[in-house]
């Protein structure tokens, strides 16, 4: 019964994250890196997770693949992944070393890492490393996959793929390495790609090319992408839906247009004010967000953003509830709790 409801609910979704809690056991105590995060990823869409360093966006993404450090645990919550054909996998129930989990990694959900320099093995050729993924998930022999490897490299815009596939990572430029990394993650035809700051290590012109490429492939193959970034420019270009995280919690989530045109949460507003805008002249002053992120071991009570917030009031010492401000636009802030009540 429950499963049928789920199947129905997930008809248009590829992934449902529900009240996810990931805690780290450390010497300083329990760290709630991800504390009650819920959002959905629709089929053929790009969801961006935005936030400062250390806000839990990478941990959220990695817990989808259960690629967490050994002292981190998914304490609570659900990760439901839609395999198609009315099959739902409950990722949170799988053991992180199990065969099922390995089949999902790289096969159904794959990941593009930040720094292509260090994420490729220096001792094997690019072609062989792509083959590694094909072998693992499609069970091809090397001889039969050579053509596919060349096709993949060509599809990510690498010229002369036959020659490139025989080269080692250090012989390629950063952009080309990141393209091969994207090629690797595409090689087993996954349904969802997690891109963990895919352009941070690249220079700006290459960034744009890589983003265009990802967008193009996502459209062509009808995949979904979870994009993790702190670059609002990247978000504007890529995302359909935006999740803004602060200290392990979602503060605001809405469609990309809503976030940029009508941001509600004080943190989102400040985040947008802190990036330079074209056409405002040379002398525009950027507004940094005052203060620093609180330490995870000594969190403020109530709203975690309140110490840095301009609108903080006495109510903010209680934890704000998430409210639906307008259609599919969720905010967790006391300011809007009031507004809604007054109306």
């Amino acid at each position, binding site marked *: 019964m429950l499963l049928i409801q789920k199947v129905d609910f997930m008809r248009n979704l590829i992934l449902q994250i529900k009240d996810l809690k990931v805690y780290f056991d450390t010497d300083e105590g329990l760290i709630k890196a991800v504390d009650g995060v819920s959002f959905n990823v629709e089929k053929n869409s790009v969801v961006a997770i935005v936030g400062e360093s250390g806000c839990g966006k990478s941990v959220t993404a990695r817990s989808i*693949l259960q*690629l967490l450090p050994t002292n981190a645990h998914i304490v609570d919550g659900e990760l439901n992944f839609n395999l198609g054909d009315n099959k739902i996998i409950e990722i949170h129930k799988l053991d992180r*070393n199990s065969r099922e*989990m*390995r*089949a*999902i*990694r*790289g*096969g159904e959900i*794959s*990941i593009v*890492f930040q*720094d292509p320099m*260090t*994420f*490729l*093995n*220096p*001792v*094997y050729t690019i072609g062989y490393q792509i083959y*590694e*993924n094909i072998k*693992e*998930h499609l069970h091809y022999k090397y001889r039969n996959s050579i053509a596919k490897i060349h096709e993949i490299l060509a599809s990510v815009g690498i010229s002369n793929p036959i020659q490139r596939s*025989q*080269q080692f990572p250090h012989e390629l430029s950063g952009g080309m390495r990141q393209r091969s*990394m994207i090629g*690797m*993650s595409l090689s087993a035809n996954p349904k969802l790609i997690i891109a963990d700051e895919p352009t941070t290590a690249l220079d700006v012109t290459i960034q744009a090319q890589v983003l265009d490429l990802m967008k193009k492939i996502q459209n062509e193959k009808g995949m979904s992408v979870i994009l993790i970034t702190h670059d609002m420019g990247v978000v504007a270009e890529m995302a359909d839906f935006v999740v803004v995280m602060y200290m392990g919690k979602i503060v605001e989530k809405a469609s990309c247009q809503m976030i940029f045109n009508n941001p509600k949460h004080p943190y989102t507003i400040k985040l947008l004010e802190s990036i330079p805008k074209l056409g405002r002249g040379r002398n525009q002053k950027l507004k940094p967000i005052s203060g620093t992120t609180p330490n995870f071991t000594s969190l403020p009570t109530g709203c975690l953003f309140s110490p840095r917030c301009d609108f903080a009031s006495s109510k903010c010492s209680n934890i704000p509830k998430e409210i639906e401000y307008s259609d599919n636009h969720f905010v967790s802030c006391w300011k809007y709790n009031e507004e809604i009540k007054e109306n």
Partner: protein
Amino acid sequence: MNITIFQSRQFRVFKKHKLAQFGAITLVFFILVAVFADLIAPKDPNKMNLRHSYKAPSSEFFLGTDRIGRDYFSRLVHGTRVSLGVGLGGIGIATIIGILFGGLSGYLGGRIDIFLLKLSELIICFPSIVLILMIVTIVGQSLLNLILIFGFLEWVGLYRLIRSLFMSLKEQEFVEALEAFGVRKFSIMFQHILPNAIAPITVWMTLTLAGMILAEAGLSFLGMGVPLQVPSWGNLLNGAKDLRVLENYPWIWIPPGIVITLAVLSINFLGDGLRDAFNPKS
């Protein structure tokens, strides 16, 4: 195009290292001698003839004969086969165990790591020569036993080397990427991390090979190595324990002495050269 081995930086450094080249050539020479021993010295190294006892070098016996009249040149050439065989066999076993245990220990950590580490400490804390003598007296003297004993005692050094290398290499991001692509742990360990550690393994193998050849010579000299009738460099020296032999029959101890010194020196030079070649700072 791909860089061939002859254009690589390592090869260029190695080419400048004259002693290492000397070592490599000498080692190749010894290996050829060992392989073609029957052609080089067709006389049976074990054929006794008491009438030829302690004959001086002559056209019939290049290096003379020993106490019971065996052709010394033939014994020396066939001894190369035994001595190198003990060294290479021991190295082979030690390398396999060292890599396997080191990989498991360094990559998996946890209980396996603690168990293997304690095991290695247990072996290390005995003086190896005493331990070898003790085991030889228990299991008996034979060529195979000696190879096995060397193999099962000498893996400790490589184990510690591999363990520490794996511990640092497993933190590299490409390992995380492999995990994210669902690659098996075993394949990550030995197919992806191991090739990154090949340089220090090669250096360890050459340097330990020299140590094993020396250990074989020392043990055989004491009469506890390979059985006495088997020709080996150490067994040849064993015949020179007597003061009378040392004074009167120099061909009994000078040739094996020179050969052992040359072999160990050349292997050490080769190891030094490889270490420099693989060291990016040289």
